[in-house]
């Protein structure tokens, strides 16, 4: 029993450390209040169900994107959200030289309020006073 408890503690420590390491160089801190704003020509933001779909969308071909779209919500620019998690340098856009952060958020407004999802680190603006 004690051995199981120690194992759980070690596992939690490991997860915590890796999460801390992952978020160590993130552009936003966990808990930050943000507003969504697309970094491309279209300011809408796609909020993905999973981090892997976000990554697949960014690195995939356009045909792949089309099959993925049913797994995303389209949030209007300015939709508020709170950062729940950040994975640094996790997304490799096909046509960009830079590597982006994957940000897990909970939407605080709009038709998809209270829903969670993953967005690119470049698709948000930190709200002044909530950094």
């Amino acid at each position, binding site marked *: 029993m004690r051995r199981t408890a120690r194992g759980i503690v070690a596992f939690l420590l490991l997860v915590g450390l890796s999460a801390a390491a992952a978020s160590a160089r993130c552009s936003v801190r966990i808990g930050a209040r943000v507003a969504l704003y697309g970094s491309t*020509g*279209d300011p809408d933001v796609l909020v993905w169900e999973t981090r892997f779909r976000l990554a697949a969308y960014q690195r995939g071909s*356009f045909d792949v994107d*089309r099959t993925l779209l049913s797994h995303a919500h389209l949030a209007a620019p300015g939709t508020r959200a709170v950062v729940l998690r950040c994975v640094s340098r996790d997304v490799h856009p096909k*046509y*960009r030289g830079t590597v982006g952060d994957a940000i897990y958020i909970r939407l605080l407004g709009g038709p998809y309020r209270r829903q969670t999802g993953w967005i690119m680190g470049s698709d948000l603006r930190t709200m002044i006073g909530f950094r």
Partner: protein
Amino acid sequence: MNGATPAVRRLRGTVVITIVLLATLGFAIEGSFVERAEVTATFDRETRIQEAQIAIQQLLRSQTDQENYVRAYTITRDVFYLQMYRSAVASFEAKVSDVRRELKDQGIDPALGGLDDYARVQQSWRQQVAAPVLAHPDQAPAELDKRSKSYSDYETSIATDLGDLVKAKSRQLGTDTLAQLRNTILVRSIWLVLFGLLAVGYSIFTSRVRKELDEERATIAILQSAYVSRVVPLPRCEVGSAYASADRALAVGGDVFDVYRLTDDQALVLIADVSGKGVDAAVLTAFIKFTVRGIALRRSDPGEILAEFNTAFAQTVDNPYLFVSMLVGVLDTQTLVLDYASAGHDSAFLRRCDGVEQLAVTGPVLGVMEEPFATVSVQLLPGDVVVLATDGLTEARDRQGRQLHERGAMELIERADSQPQRMCDELIGRVRALGRNRMRDDLALLAIRVLGESSDA
């Protein structure tokens, strides 16, 4: 002696160094023109790359315009936005062609694939998103919005990538040009340094040449003063002489004359012309003068004198390019008989009261072959003038390059004063005037006039 005299060698050296100097300067100047052309070409390429970057930005704007016009139409149903949408589509296609051409011209081939993707995706957006929305603006499902967003993301990514490639090309161009310019500047600097070194070398060379020339002039001046021919008075005769140097000659040439009393009644008369100029020729004239005098003291026949001198000349001078034309005469002042032999020396004349005649050549020039030289006897009469000249008289040219020849020389002699010295001075003056005070060759003149019964010896 070898074929090239020191003067010729100096001239060759000066010409070669001057050519190298000018070539070096030419290369250095040409280098700066090349450098300028390279910089201009680079600026031109840089400008075109910037134009390509602007065109890519315009592509993105055109893409956004299309999306906005579709949105505007779905909201307002105003056909104006449809027209604007179609115009934006046409503009987009034209811009894609422009960018493709620029990318090809600038050799940014990796970007061509991205551009094709971009055009394909935009076309797909028009078919998959814009066309359904424009056909049924009331029924545009949310799925189309997502798809539109997806297209937009994708196109923006491609456009960003294209821009990065063009920027990278621009940077590379700048780096390459800088490296090329550095190389050009290095090469040009080397040429300039070489030019400077050569200029220094040239200066040293010309200083040396000038010094040598000064030394040579001094040597020749000494030789001239030592070997200069001075006429001696002869009984029953009046003698005149003159010597004029050519303008371009560095110093004394190979012309020599001599009047030398062999006995009380006999005198040696000599005129000779050595091929060549300078110290060698000056020394040779001295050799001729004193050798012929020596021979003449032993032999009285001018033909024999020339033959013996020819042998001595061949044994002494080993330069095959050097030869001498010479007239040797022995004048008996009692009988007034002139015995002479002429080794290829055709500038010898006899002026009588009835005209001027040329003294015939009796053998080849000296230093070429061993040939006998015939002796000719001429009975002189009071008033006759023997005029011995070098080829500076018969080969005198006017400004148009026309030679005087023997006929012209004889006309000048016939018209000249009969007093020997005045005649010589007058002939020199005429030759100078012919070439407008410029003489192409040295000219030596010796004139001997037989005095009449009433004249003083």
